[in-house]
């Protein structure tokens, strides 16, 4: 059937060659061209301006996306008006936490204050719920081990908190959670031991294999055994070293360590609070009152908690200058 049709078509056409010479094909061809032209016309009409200039998209879309104004302002915007809080925040361990992480986006607030609107406009979060703090500090198996976390129930028990609905701010200032006396970058550099000769005087020991049971990653106890032995006899013995001494590792070889003697730090646990049970841990109604009561002269009135209580309650501050205890090879 198909062969017949083709044959009859071939015979009935004029005796010319070339595509344009076939009358039926010519009509088809013209129709086809017309369709293409119409298509191009429609495309021109539908294609948005600027499409395809630098890629298969509308160029203006790129600028529209880039033109949006940021909502989060960054902590620099807060510094302008809240200088005191900002400075306290900058020198403590929360310095990497943005203001807006806890207080919410500031764009509306900044705009409202710039325009001088009423204080209820552009209000930010002020008092955070326990859950907000625990979003970072809840103890979870997946959290990195060095990150400070708590089990809320366990923490409350240890701190003698009887009202478990109390906010974290009851004891901890969120702006300066550890009341550090200096910036992290200004804290004392603490070496991390790596080479054998850091402890062993004899260079020959370097060529020997690590003996069985030798420490690979050093902990506080490996160098400060004497202090730790003393510490274990004092009432604070259940706390980790890192509870008071923040250690901030800077590199493979060193870190920054804090000896925090700020009374505010001690008072986080020892300040008398309505939500804390009586007799759970020693509590002070007023640090200043206690200091003045105990003081005999002006020098005493400048003292911190650790100046009087360290030896008895925490650990000895008088220790040999070099407490590194090593065996063969001799201590440095």
């Amino acid at each position, binding site marked *: 059937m198909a062969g017949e049709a083709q044959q009859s078509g071939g015979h009935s056409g004029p005796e010319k060659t070339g595509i344009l010479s076939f009358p039926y094909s010519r009509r088809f061809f013209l129709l086809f061209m017309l369709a293409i032209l119409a298509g191009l016309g429609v495309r021109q009409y539908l294609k948005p301006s600027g499409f395809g200039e630098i890629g298969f998209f509308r160029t203006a879309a790129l600028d529209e996306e880039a033109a949006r104004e940021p909502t989060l302002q960054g902590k620099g915007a807060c510094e302008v008006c809240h200088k005191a809080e900002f400075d306290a925040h900058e020198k403590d361990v929360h310095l990497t936490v943005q203001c807006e992480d806890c207080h919410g986006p500031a764009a509306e607030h900044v705009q409202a204050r710039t325009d001088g609107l009423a204080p209820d406009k552009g209000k930010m979060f002020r008092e955070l719920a326990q859950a907000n703090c625990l979003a970072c500090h809840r103890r*979870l198996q997946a959290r990195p081990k060095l990150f400070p976390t708590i089990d809320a129930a366990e923490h409350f028990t240890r701190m003698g908190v009887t009202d478990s609905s109390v906010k974290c701010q009851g004891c901890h200032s969120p702006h300066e959670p550890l009341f550090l006396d200096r910036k992290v970058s200004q804290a004392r550099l603490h070496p991390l031991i790596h080479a054998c000769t850091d402890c062993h005087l004899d260079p020959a020991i370097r060529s020997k294999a690590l003996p069985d049971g030798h420490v690979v990653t050093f902990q506080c106890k490996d160098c400060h055994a004497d202090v730790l032995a003393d510490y274990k006899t004092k009432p604070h013995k259940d706390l980790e070293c890192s509870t008071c001494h923040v250690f901030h590792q800077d590199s493979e070889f060193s870190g920054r360590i804090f000896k925090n003697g700020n009374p505010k730090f001690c008072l986080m646990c020892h300040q008398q609070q309505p939500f804390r049970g009586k007799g759970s841990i020693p509590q002070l109604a007023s640090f200043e009152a206690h200091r003045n009561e105990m003081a005999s002269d002006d020098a005493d009135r400048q003292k911190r908690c650790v100046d009087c209580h360290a030896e008895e309650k925490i650990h000895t501050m008088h220790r040999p200058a070099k407490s590194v205890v090593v065996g063969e090879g001799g201590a440095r």
Partner: protein
Amino acid sequence: MIEDGSDVLDRASLAVGRRQFMKIGLVGAFSLLVPFAVRAAERAPYKREDYTWGFIVDTTKCMGCGSCVRACKAENSVPDGYHRTWVERYTVLANGRVEVDSPRGALDGFPEDPAHPKKDVAKSFFVPKLCNQCATAPCVQVCPVGASYAAPDGVTLVDRKRCIGCGYCVQACPYGVRFIHPQNGYADKCTLCYHRITKGLPTACSQACPVGARSAGNLKDATSRIRALLNSSRYGVLKPALGTNPKCYYIGLDKEVV
């Protein structure tokens, strides 16, 4: 010097001497320039051709607080129940079973540990997810109207005015980072905070991250932080076998992460 002095004396009515006048003049002239200098520093004109944006996530630092998710939501008005970025928790059990969860995308962090005794858990970690900024992006390829596109600076974006909301790109994305905006109908996704990075600001998520676990950076700039991190650490990308060539790199990526 003498001439100078006499000159000043001659015009005793003048309140300022010549030297002082010059000083004031110079300081004044420079102080006039200060606003321009500050403005130039603030908004140096962004040149697309100088940038290829990439993203780096350090999974060893992430502690699953969800600050990035909250910041992203606030910055980009992400509708409830949808996420441009989210944090997943992988729990690898001792018997080899792997569990992944992300309650509300970690918008409120992670309220509790998964219900397994501690001894049954071999390891557990967090992995933040976002648009992988693929160099050969499947979502761009499938868009019938040219609304999904890769910007010349390496960021995959959506033209909201052009998008017809067909959802092809949502299906094409192997990382599940796209969604159809429930109110506005267009496809929405992480833009790498294009409106911020082109102004010299960090992305909302990386600014919010308290442990510095995530940041966007210019792969073309040999001095950028992302290049330094890529040069100094061992990293991986998600689903490399798909040939999407992601520009989102993960430090400390576990083989279980998909």
